[in-house]
């Protein structure tokens, strides 16, 4: 009985969609457009997030050591850095290495530093940070803690750089929430509209079914199924368009900007998200249909 019912719903839905071909195409394209923009948006957000994370990982924290630092103090500082969740990697730069770096960076100036023992370059630890380091005040407090340790002369990190990353992340996150919500709303409204259209164009049929005593599920079923099918079709179309857009974007970016945004690093949405979009499309179609058919209840 349940199976027969489902067959009836699907059969009626397919017939309905086919009889209203023009409407169906219009609806599916509209749903696809809404989901496509949502998809583009998700992709851009994901890629920007990845970019911010990569840039964040390039950020460094330098801990300058006093010239009279003891080995035990140095080991203590190193342990403090290693133990902190913000720190990804720690590297010691000795006084000699610091001098070598200066000589490399300013070759004209090298002769000015004549005595290799009495030069003014301090030893330091250079720490590479995790990508989340730019968020919140944890870094600030880590720096303060390090500054208070014995043997530490100064702690520096690129505040402006991290703040920039923070702002971009904030902007992307904030814009993402708003635009995502509005787009989801728009997609749901679109489907509701589409199903209302279907219901409107067949309100006589519905009224008649009610008057001959058809069960509500018999009346609503095919419409809900139409909504689900349209949602699924729209989602599939949107994913196809998205894949195309991403491959086009790779091509274009490879040509236009061989710089910071590496074209091959542009990622599409993961497979799970694909399934989610299709299921989401069907859910939205189902919901829109139920919403539009609510008055029948």
């Amino acid at each position, binding site marked *: 009985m349940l199976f027969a019912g489902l067959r009836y719903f699907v059969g009626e839905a397919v017939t309905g969609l086919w009889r209203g071909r023009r409407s169906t195409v219009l609806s599916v394209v509209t749903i696809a457009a809404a989901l496509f923009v949502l998809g583009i948006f998700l992709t851009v957000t994901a890629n920007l997030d990845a970019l911010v994370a990569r840039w964040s990982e390039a950020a460094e924290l330098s801990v300058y050591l006093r010239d009279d630092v003891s080995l035990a103090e140095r080991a203590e500082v190193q342990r403090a850095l290693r133990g902190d969740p913000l720190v990804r990697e720690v590297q010691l730069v000795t006084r000699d290495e610091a001098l070598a770096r200066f000589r490399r960076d300013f070759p004209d100036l090298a002769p000015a530093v004549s005595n290799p023992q009495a030069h003014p370059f301090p030893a330091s630890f250079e720490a590479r940070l995790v990508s989340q380091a730019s968020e919140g005040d944890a870094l600030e407090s880590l720096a303060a803690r390090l500054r208070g340790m014995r043997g530490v002369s100064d702690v520096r990190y690129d505040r402006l750089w991290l703040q920039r990353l923070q702002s971009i992340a904030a902007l992307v996150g904030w814009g993402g929430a708003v635009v995502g919500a509005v787009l989801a709303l728009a997609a749901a409204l679109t489907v509701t509209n589409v199903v209302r259209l279907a219901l409107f164009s067949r309100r006589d049929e519905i009224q*008649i079914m009610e008057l*001959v005593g058809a069960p509500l599920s018999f009346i609503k079923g095919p419409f809900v199924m139409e909504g689900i099918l349209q949602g699924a079709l729209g989602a599939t179309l949107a994913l196809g368009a998205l894949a195309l857009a991403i491959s086009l974007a790779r091509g274009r970016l490879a040509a236009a900007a061989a710089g910071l945004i590496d074209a091959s690093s542009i990622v599409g949405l993961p497979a799970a998200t694909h399934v989610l979009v299709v299921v989401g499309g069907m859910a939205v179609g189902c919901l829109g249909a139920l919403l539009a058919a609510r008055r029948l209840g």
Partner: protein
Amino acid sequence: MIEIEGLSKLYGRDVFALEDFSMHVGKGEFVFLTGPSGAGKSTLLRILLCQEAPTTGRVIVGGRDITRLKPREVQTYRRTVGFVFQDFKLIPGKTVFENVMFALRILGVPDVQQRRRTFQVLKWVGLQHRANAYPLELSGGEQQRVAIARALVNEPALVLADEPTGNLDPDLALEIMNLFREINSTGTTVLVATHDRELIRHVGHRAVTLDHGRLAIG
């Protein structure tokens, strides 16, 4: 079968479509409902189908007060009633055959039986050759006959027909009336609203006359 007591129906503020109307119809009876335009015939039939709720009064059909049914009970009740609407109410997107078969489908009748029975009823009303046409491709009288076929197909306990021969020529009208009588002879209660005095005379059953929502002759 039908017991109506003190039934009133008020539309808006001052249009009394029915006013303190009472009537009894026995099980298996064949009753005509007549009266001038706007007398309240269609309103009475719509109330009997639970399409509208009365303002006051009791309506008992088959021992149950149909004004107090829950939505699900209304569905079950309607499946036992065959209704011919004044404006036909056929589903435009389904063929004649599908329109008639639909009434059987919702009863859960097996597929093969649905088809056999539908074909039989379409033959009764003389439309077997138009079975695959859509309602809008039919003449007014043909549409009316499809509506009649749908009302009769599931052998309901009660048949309500609103002006079922208004678009038919006198010969065909009489033929259709004979169909109703045939159904009636199997025990079905039949209530037919009509203006056609000649038809009533010809068929010769009890006739209840309404005027301005009140019982005039009955």
